[in-house]
């Protein structure tokens, strides 16, 4: 079937919009900054609209397979839009709008040359990684989003960013090499790079090649774990996120989720029940690693010296909690995990943005977790921090509580649920103390020191974190619908036959 109407081309739009917006923003920024910003904002809005339209189309369980150049699936490149992909697209576009709004309102985008084009390329990489049905293109889109993220991470310059930037780039280059080795092995074994096709072909691999298959699977999973910052591969994240421009760090909140998404996408599809020696290959390692990540993350929240660092540790902790839910590979816990994924991404972004709001108001004290002189809007910023902390730790009434509750409830089906409960509940408690410590130091205590460098107050920068918090509230209010969608997405992604049928279209149409 040749796509004929505009609506059939919907899956390519999340790639085409930023790919077009980036060069135009680049051209416009040279002369008219306002126009460049407008292009960037309109592009993000269009992406959000497209993502919502895609979500509406796939919410009934359809899986859209878009064949680029109309080449049939195992030979050509496909984009696959299912419930999970649409959910991630909506999340990415929403987060991008919030981060972009904050960057524009705080004029952080004016600190370097190419913020908006890089931002658009970053989104193109993210959207591509969520949509692609081809393992090699997953690598390519990973590279696209990484290259853009290097630029964004270094945006604003300064020695601290450069130092962290070198480490971030080097670790990701090593990750890319390992990704390519895994791809080479998988291609040599199966003769295909299409995920759905590979999922069918791994079953036919000869017994003497099972060891190789297992190595390839573990290498691939390690790369995803590196991107997701799972312990012990999390060490790159803290400094990178803590020194990035806060609006960028807010967008980076979804970068670790790309790693988690890839795990959720690739493991059931390729290394599912039929994969012989590689069946559910990460299962024995992922569960303990996730628990260690949650523990390290929230211990870091407890020990952090600044609010941005605390937010970075909260990202690790929430990824760990999320992967505890994912690691069982059960539909119910995966669904709970996906709901928590939406929540934790927004909560991490809110934390980074609130940290920036505080840093902008405290002059030379920045976002350090130490008492400083009185600053503008202390009470309202304090309330925002409290709301963000409530969200990040998972206390009622915000959606983190519902997410953690769903995860805890679904985990009882697993044999090791006692460990998981212990880790999740303990880390929540440690996180609460950590946030309370920083909150009381920053917002309650004060020194009498006069700080001449405190910038003039403008309340515009409160907008983006408030929107993020409002979305978290909306996610709790709409929890029934959102978790039903997440459960449906989890059930769909755990049934690889569905997407194989949609992508390969054997004999149909």
């Amino acid at each position, binding site marked *: 079937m040749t796509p004929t109407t505009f609506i059939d081309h919907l899956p390519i739009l999340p790639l085409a919009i930023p790919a077009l917006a980036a060069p135009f923003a680049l051209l416009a920024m040279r002369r008219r900054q306002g126009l460049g910003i407008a292009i960037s904002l309109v592009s993000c809005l269009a992406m959000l609209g497209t993502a919502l339209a895609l979500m509406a189309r796939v919410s009934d369980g359809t899986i859209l397979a878009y064949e680029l150049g109309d080449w049939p699936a195992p030979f050509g490149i496909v984009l696959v839009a299912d419930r999970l992909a649409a959910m991630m697209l909506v999340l990415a576009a929403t987060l991008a709008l919030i981060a972009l709004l904050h960057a524009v309102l705080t004029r952080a985008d004016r600190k370097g040359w190419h913020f908006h084009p890089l931002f658009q390329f970053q989104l193109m990489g993210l959207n591509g990684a969520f949509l692609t049905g081809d393992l*090699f293109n997953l690598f*390519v889109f990973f*590279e696209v989003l990484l*290259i853009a993220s*290097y630029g964004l991470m*270094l945006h604003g*310059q*300064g*020695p*601290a960013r*450069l*130092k*962290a*930037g*070198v*480490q971030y*780039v*080097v670790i990701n*280059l*090593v990750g*890319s*090499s390992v990704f*390519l*080795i895994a*791809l*080479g*092995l998988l*291609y*040599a074994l199966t003769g295909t*790079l299409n995920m759905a096709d590979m999922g069918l072909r791994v079953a036919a691999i000869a017994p003497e090649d099972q060891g190789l298959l297992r190595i390839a699977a573990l290498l691939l999973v390690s790369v995803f774990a590196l991107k997701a910052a799972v312990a012990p591969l999390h060490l790159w994240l803290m*400094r990178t996120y803590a*020194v990035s421009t806060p609006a960028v760090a807010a967008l980076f909140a979804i970068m670790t989720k790309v790693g988690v998404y890839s795990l959720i996408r690739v493991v059931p599809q390729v290394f599912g029940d039929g994969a012989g020696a590689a069946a559910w290959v990460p299962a024995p390692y992922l569960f303990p690693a996730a628990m260690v990540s949650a523990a390290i993350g929230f211990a870091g929240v407890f020990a952090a*010296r600044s609010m941005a660092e605390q937010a970075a540790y909260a990202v690790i902790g929430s990824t760990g909690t999320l992967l505890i839910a994912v690691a069982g590979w059960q539909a119910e816990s995966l669904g709970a995990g996906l709901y928590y994924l939406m929540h934790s991404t927004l909560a991490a972004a809110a934390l980074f943005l609130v940290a920036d709001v505080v840093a902008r108001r405290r002059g030379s004290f920045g976002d350090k977790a130490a008492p400083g002189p009185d600053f503008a809007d202390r009470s309202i910023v304090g309330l925002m921090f409290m709301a963000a902390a409530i969200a990040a730790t998972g206390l009622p009434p915000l959606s983190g509580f519902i997410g953690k509750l769903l995860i805890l409830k679904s985990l009882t089906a697993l044999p090791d649920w006692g460990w998981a409960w212990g880790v999740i509940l303990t880390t929540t408690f440690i996180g609460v103390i950590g946030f309370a410590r920083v909150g009381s130091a920053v917002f309650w205590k004060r020194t009498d020191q006069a700080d001449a460098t405190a910038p003039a107050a403008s309340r515009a920068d409160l907008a983006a974190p408030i929107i993020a918090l409002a979305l978290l509230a909306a996610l709790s209010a709409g929890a029934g619908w959102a978790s039903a969608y997440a459960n449906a997405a989890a059930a769909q992604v755990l049934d690889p036959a569905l997407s194989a049928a949609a992508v390969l279209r054997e004999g149909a149409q």
Partner: protein
Amino acid sequence: MNYEFLMASAIGVLVAGGIYLALRARTFQVVLGLTLLSYAVNLFLFASGRLVLNRPPIWDKAVAEYTDPLPQALVLTAIVITFGMTAFVVILALRSFLETGSDHVDGDTVPCDAQDAIADGDANADRGANQP
């Protein structure tokens, strides 16, 4: 010794050298290590289509057997990406060295306040003095 052995040992030596250099402390060695590693990966990807001698990758009337063209396309993509990345990391390492005064990937902490900055300055000065 056949060419498969040659290929495999070449990849092995490159990976070993690459990993050794990538674990070094200074950015220049790390960049070289990453380059060696990417060469090894490119050769490995090329070999993933099986090693075939003297066969064309594209269709020709006179030829009955082909070599797999897909790994060649993949290698091309990988070369382009790693080339760009290497260029980027070289510039980044240079910038970082010029701005922080240290070419260590991980050695020095970022100065948090004046005290740290002074301590770091001393550490750098000492290290500089020990160099030939």
